């Protein structure tokens, strides 16, 4: 059996679903961010797989796209963790269940 595009796509789908479940179900805000990071990694894996199994010009554009995704993910996690720190400073907790300031 040759390892083809579908193997990587299924792997990316599993990784995305695990990250999605973590992001939806964890109580801790940092746990939620870990889930989001896993989802971004799964998308990057899928894009790189597409880049490997396509023509050369498309492969190059896809890899540049992946570099941009990684940069934006780094910005996102820096702001997210700073927000978690601010919430902790004001509420002494970062549990997303107990941060209900906006609840009517």
């Amino acid at each position: 059996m040759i390892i083809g595009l579908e193997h990587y796509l299924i792997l990316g789908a599993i990784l995305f679903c695990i990250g999605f479940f973590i992001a939806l179900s964890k109580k801790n805000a940092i746990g939620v961010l870990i889930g989001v990071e896993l989802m971004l990694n799964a998308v990057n894996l899928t894009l790189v797989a597409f880049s490997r199994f396509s023509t050369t010009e498309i492969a190059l554009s896809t890899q540049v796209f992946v570099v941009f995704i990684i940069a934006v993910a780094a910005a996102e996690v820096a702001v997210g963790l700073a927000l978690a720190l601010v919430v902790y400073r004001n509420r002494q907790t970062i549990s997303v269940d107990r941060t209900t300031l906006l609840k009517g």
Partner: protein
Amino acid sequence: MSDFGFHLAFWSLAAMTIGGASMIMVSRNLIHAVVWLVLSMLGVAGLYLTLSADFIAVVQVLIYVGAISVLMLFAIMLTPRAERDNSSSLKTAGPAGVVVIMVMIATFWVAIDTDWGSVREVALTDQARLIGESLIKHYILPFEIGAVLLTAALVGAIALAREDDEDAAVHAASLQAELDGLEFDPVDVVDPPIPAEPESEARS
């Protein structure tokens, strides 16, 4: 390409990635979860190598394994009195599971059923040079926007996370009060009783 070594690399890296991600789901301690995240990201970096994307693999190791995990560990340690536990919330885990299973079925179906028409050309060589050239030729505008975005995000993160002097005073005083076993009233710190000042001269 279908030799034994490639199969071994793919399946072991896949097991490492999925295993690490699953351990994040079940581990009770948040710090352990971050360490499992590092393992999973290393697995993804190895999978990039099996796809002959060496530049992306190195970037993955530098940014995710090196920087983001350390940032997360710092964030965990800067929130000492928050819960360390990484448990799932019982209220949302059930509906989340249903949604995730539906997403999984949909993505699997698309991945298997579609005819992707994949071609297997020779992989790119000299990728760092090619990516760098196209970043400053074709993608110069997104590149500059990315630079501005990163600057703005980092300045914003610093501005958010920075404790101003008043907050720092309240925080230090609350810790001290806790040590002394006293009642703590933040108002005393923010508005300390003003000593009687000599009256300022009235304007003429």
